[in-house]
């Protein structure tokens, strides 16, 4: 019997399991079969963790059989897949890089462990831009992932595998990481709910570091409620990530409250930005009108310094990446070029071979920007800019409860369409300032663009540690637009239909 998992939400899967409509092993088998059958078109997965999935399912079924229903966690029986920069014992963690090809996870990341403890069925590891450097998933050393809505287009990035897996109905939930837009932009391109919580809300322990003052882990799902359920599982302090904070709330609590009386901000400089496509602008305006009709009060807010965010981000990100990626020394783990005569030669050859072009560029850029004399001109100034941008957001959130903005300037572009790195960086123009300030931000699907016919997401931005604000607005938009759809060509029929 087919369960019709593709179109089911995480909440529905768990409810069906608890009601005895199906078993966890049936869920796991169908999910694994779907991935095997459908992912040849999308290539979202780098590794399928079949054994782990079946073992987890067997544990859940044993608990159900023993009547220990109350012990089942909030994600009991829910398939979840993980971006391949997250360690999970029993899988490899490659960051889609030749540098880590074959690297076996020696421990499990806290965010992954929390999903396992909540009873999820781990489906496997998802493709990404190499070391999360990119906006298209084309820089993966193992080949690009394709956008389920149009297989000739990119899914966005760097969490492109995560967004594509959810959009193709291969997994109701996936985890991604976001340093400058890497959860939200693929969320917009693939038409799924994609949440970057406030910096510090979720532990990064066991997630391969890119920019440590910017990185944050978050969920991708097809409904706001599923994303909120996942956040409930993920959020909280972890001693092993010293930046993680204990600021948990029930993220599902106010989803039904509506937006009446909420103050929602629009950023004039975003809406008039050069490069913003008319179809994306139209969608943001349409979403604003719907929220206003639902009782929200729209206000214009100014973020006078966000113009400098892109520049500051492309200073801070590479500097931190340069520092973080110096750990790849070809000695303790990672790719090693054989036959080198000296240690220096071995470092240089192994890192040149192991890192792809974008990783090499970012490392070199960071190394330069941190060098003596250059540091003060760029890195230090970028940190001063961070002060101003943080202040801008704090002032804006004195006036509004949530900000509505574009996620990406366009809908998904074609595979191979953007070759120039600085042009690719523009994909992040509306997302990086949020990482710099640390606020929560998410992409909420609002249907298809009128020109491209491809998914468009609007960005909702919340005050620091008030991520429930943006989820509440997202839930209101979901009621207007309907829940995100599985991409055409990937939906399966419900059992019995």
């Amino acid at each position, binding site marked *: 019997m087919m369960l019709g998992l593709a179109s089911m939400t995480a909440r529905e899967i768990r409810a069906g399991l608890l009601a005895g409509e199906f078993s966890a092993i049936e869920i796991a088998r169908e999910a694994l079969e779907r991935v095997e059958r459908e992912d040849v078109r999308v290539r979202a997965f780098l590794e399928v963790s079949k054994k782990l999935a079946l073992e987890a399912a067997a544990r859940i079924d044993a608990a159900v059989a023993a009547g220990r229903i109350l012990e089942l966690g909030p994600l009991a029986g829910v398939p979840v897949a993980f971006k391949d920069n997250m360690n999970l014992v029993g899988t490899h963690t490659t960051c889609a890089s030749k540098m880590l090809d074959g*690297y*076996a996870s*020696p421990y499990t990341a806290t965010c992954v462990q929390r999903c396992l403890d909540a009873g999820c069925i781990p489906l496997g590891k998802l493709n990404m831009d190499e070391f999360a450097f990119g906006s298209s998933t084309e820089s993966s050393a193992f080949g690009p992932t394709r956008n389920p809505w149009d297989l000739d287009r990119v899914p966005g990035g760097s969490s492109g595998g995560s967004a594509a897996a959810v959009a193709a109905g291969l997994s109701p939930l996936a985890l991604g990481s976001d340093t400058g837009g890497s959860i939200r932009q693929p969320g917009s391109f693939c038409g799924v709910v994609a949440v970057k919580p406030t*910096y*510090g809300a979720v532990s990064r322990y066991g997630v391969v570091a890119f920019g*440590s*003052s910017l990185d944050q882990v978050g969920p991708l799902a097809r409904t706001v409620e599923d994303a909120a359920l996942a956040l409930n599982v993920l959020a909280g302090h972890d*001693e092993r990530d010293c*930046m993680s*904070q204990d600021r948990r709330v029930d993220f599902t609590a106010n989803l039904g409250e509506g937006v009446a009386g909420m103050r929602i901000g629009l950023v004039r400089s975003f809406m008039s930005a050069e490069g913003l496509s008319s179809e994306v602008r139209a969608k943001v305006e349409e979403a604003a009108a719907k929220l206003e009709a639902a009782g929200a009060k729209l206000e214009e807010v100014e973020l006078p*310094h966000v*113009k*400098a*965010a*892109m*520049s*500051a981000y*492309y200073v801070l990100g590479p500097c931190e990446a340069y520092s973080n990626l*110096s750990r790849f020394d070809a*000695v*303790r*783990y*990672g*790719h*090693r070029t054989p036959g*080198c005569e*000296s*240690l220096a*030669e*071995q470092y*240089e*050859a192994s*890192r*040149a071979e192991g890192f792809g072009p974008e990783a*090499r*560029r970012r490392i*070199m*850029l960071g*190394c*330069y920007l941190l*060098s003596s004399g250059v540091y003060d001109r*760029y890195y*230090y*100034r*970028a*940190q*001063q*800019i*961070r*002060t*101003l941008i*943080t202040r801008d957001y704090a002032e804006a959130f004195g006036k509004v409860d949530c900000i509505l903005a574009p996620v990406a300037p366009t809908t998904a572009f074609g595979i191979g369409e953007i070759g*120039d*790195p*600085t042009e690719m*960086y523009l994909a992040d123009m509306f997302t990086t300032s949020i990482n*710099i*300030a*640390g606020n929560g931000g998410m992409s909420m699907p609002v249907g298809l663009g009128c020109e491209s016919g491809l998914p468009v997401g609007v960005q909702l931005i919340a005050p*620091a540690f008030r991520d429930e604000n943006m989820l509440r607005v997202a839930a209101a938009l979901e009621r207007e637009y309907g829940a995100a759809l599985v991409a055409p060509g990937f939906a399966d029929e419900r059992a019995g239909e």
Partner: protein
Amino acid sequence: MGPHLTEDDVRGIAEVARIGLTEDELARMTVDLNAIVGSLAGIFEYDLEGVSPTFHPIGGLVNVMREDAETPSFAQRQALSGAPHEQEGFFAVPSILGEDGDR
């Protein structure tokens, strides 16, 4: 405005960053880095006199201490499990002393 970096600068950076580049790659990298650095001009648009820097988004958080307690950690076997080359329970590397090695 002239280029920010010359090929010689980039050669020096590659050495510090420990990334071996061929002459062709060096030329390409020089073009790319100049284009990227050129695109960073936005951070010079504001007067930053007297603005203090912010190094991370959690305001006021300075040092985070935990109790200095023993906890289980990797066994030697696990720690070595990802090593490209190990020898007698150690990470093995090419000789680091002198032209002719250390023995």
